[in-house]
């Protein structure tokens, strides 16, 4: 059994407050091939020039709609996908050129938990084998100690060690996700990428799992990259939040910056779409209803990628791509016409029709 560390020791080991991960100009394209010769006819720009920095011990929430590249970004960060361009610096080390074998050591510190607890656990392995696998891969599973470590991990995530000999199908979704956490924690990582970790779970189970994630973070000084589309949940769990649209980060800031003082029209539209949880306040939030759908990432619009759905779009938006920088709102946003709007505030009287948003629609 490992000895119990104090919170200070945990934080010292985890280097709380230091930069743990830096992503520079990260690009990930997927080729589109066609014809019998599988010639490459285009590229899906899944992640297109992302810069991010994470501080040890914090939670960075990454939000965006499906197809915006948030999952690809998460997988590229831990190099399950090889980046097309850019650099990933983890603990001061550039991990971009590392071979699979060399990445193994990095992954002791950098783990991932997937969205689907039904697909991410091998159905032919017992829970003990699943949780022990990372230990075996790193040749640190040894006899009694190894067993004790697995039991301890299962207890940490709120499962009983007696369940270790069962198979994944005997567990509910919430319990399976706990098994996934136990596996991710087996090697004492510093950072975990959480890709929609509770989306597949029932409503009444989500809160249990979210609380577990937060207590694990506190106990082990973990850094989280938390990828999700549920804006209320991201607000609850994150210290900082980045908003992604079509492969780019359009706004980033503290939780308060993003939720209370959003500067980018896309962030504002996302927030305004969150249902009001109180029936008596119905109709008192101005809903920005965006027209059209997210354009194809294989052929993103020129200039600002959001301009095809944006009500503020001007000719400059098609010509010049707005940089992600602070334009006087106190945090960076990528809009030529950045301006703070408070979409979550309720208006005094019920608003009539939602704000009609006009703009060219993708026919």
């Amino acid at each position: 059994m490992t000895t119990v560390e104090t919170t200070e020791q945990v934080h010292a080991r985890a280097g709380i407050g230091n930069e743990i991960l830096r992503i520079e100009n990260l690009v990930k394209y997927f080729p589109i091939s066609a014809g019998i010769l599988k010639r490459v006819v285009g590229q899906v720009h899944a992640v297109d020039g992302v810069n991010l920095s994470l501080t040890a011990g914090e939670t960075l929430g990454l939000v965006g709609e499906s197809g915006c590249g948030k999952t690809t970004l998460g997988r590229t960060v831990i190099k399950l996908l090889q980046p097309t361009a850019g650099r990933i610096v983890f603990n001061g080390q550039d991990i971009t050129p590392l071979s699979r074998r060399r990445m193994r050591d990095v992954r002791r510190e950098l783990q991932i938990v997937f969205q689907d607890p039904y697909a991410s656990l091998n159905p032919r392995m017992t829970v003990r084998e699943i949780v022990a696998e990372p230990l075996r891969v790193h040749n640190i599973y040894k006899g009694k100690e190894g067993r004790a470590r697995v039991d301890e991990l299962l207890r940490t995530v709120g499962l009983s060690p007696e369940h270790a000999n069962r198979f994944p199908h005997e567990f509910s979704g919430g319990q399976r996700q706990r098994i996934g956490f136990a596996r991710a924690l087996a090697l004492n990582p510093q950072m975990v990428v959480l890709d929609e970790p509770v989306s597949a779970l029932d409503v009444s189970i989500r809160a249990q799992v979210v609380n577990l994630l937060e207590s694990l973070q506190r106990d082990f000084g973990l850094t989280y990259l938390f990828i999700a589309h549920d804006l209320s949940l991201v607000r609850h769990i994150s210290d900082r939040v980045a908003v992604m649209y079509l492969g780019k980060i359009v706004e980033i800031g503290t939780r308060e910056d993003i939720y209370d003082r959003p500067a980018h029209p896309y962030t504002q539209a996302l927030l305004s779409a969150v249902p009001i949880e109180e029936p008596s306040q119905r109709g008192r939030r101005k809903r920005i209803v965006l027209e059209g759908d997210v354009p194809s990432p294989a052929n993103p619009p020129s200039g600002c990628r959001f301009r095809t759905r944006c009500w503020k779009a001007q000719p400059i938006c098609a010509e010049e791509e707005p940089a992600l920088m602070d334009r006087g709102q106190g945090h960076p946003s990528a809009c030529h016409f950045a301006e703070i709007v408070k979409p979550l505030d309720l208006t005094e009287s019920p608003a009539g029709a939602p704000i009609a948003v006009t703009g060219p629609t993708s026919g």
Partner: protein
Amino acid sequence: MRPTAAAEPILSIRDLAVQFTTEDGIVKAVDGITYDVYPGETLGIVGESGSGKSVSTMSILGLIPQPPGKIVRGEAYFNGKDLLKMSKKELRHVRGSEVSMVFQDPMTSLNPVLKVGYQIGEAIRTHHPNKKDDEVKEQAVGLLRLVGVPNPERRYEQYPHEFSGGMRQRAMIAMAISNSPQLLIADEPTTALDVTIQAQILEVLKKAQDETHAATILITHDLGLVAELAERVIVMYAGKIVEYGDVHTIFESPRHPYTVGLMDSLPRIGVDEEWLRPIPGQPPSLISRPPGCPFHPRCFLSQGRLRCREEEPPLKPIDESTHLTACHFAEELEGRRSKLVEEKAAAEAR
């Protein structure tokens, strides 16, 4: 529109029970539920997966496979006629004209080899066989325009794969309202969609309802959606209705511990808290449901009281009002406000 005492319900479900026979035993998916839907209103049915919320409406329209499904007992009066006693042919006539449905997954509910316009036209032609082709087309294009599909004339000629998820859901809604139904059943209509598309579909649903004056049953696990759209709410747990009342009462002073737990467990965008307040335990297996109140093993109110374990609480009104709850100790929740109301009061006090 609020139902008045004088209004006749358009749909009355009485003591409906539906079972599925599986290898592991009999699953009591819906176990004796009773409710009414009034003309023009929106009734929200909230519950988690396996609570029976979808089966409760699918079964009355003959949309569950039988076997393994079986309607064990109950009545479902639609405009005075029992849907459960109708022949398949009669039911087919009701479905798609007087009652129509919008399903969760717009990817699988359209036929991939038929043009979208043809499929909407089919819904119209099935119930109006004498309509001329150009009339049908004109109506279908008009419906696509109504639900906000840009370039409806061109879209009419396209196949489902050329539509995005949000557009397909619009096409489904167009199809559902094509015969001006009296009752629209929307089963998780926005669950598969992105947030900004969800907002669009909500507006379309509201518009469709204004246009057709149809009563709507909104089945969802999303309390926010119910808060936004419904007038009355049914909360289901383990195949039973545990609470039933108007949306304001349910959200502001819930009187069933499950409803309270569900509302408290959600992160709210306007509320700061360090920890969420989860409901402990797991949803019960519907094969071996706990005896007594099905929620008692997870209940903060029960605390092991014998009555909860032995006696199943009936759904009964609170103080003879229209607010019903199925809890032996509902009066102990009196005065308890939901998290959001609590938080708002605290903010005002500051």
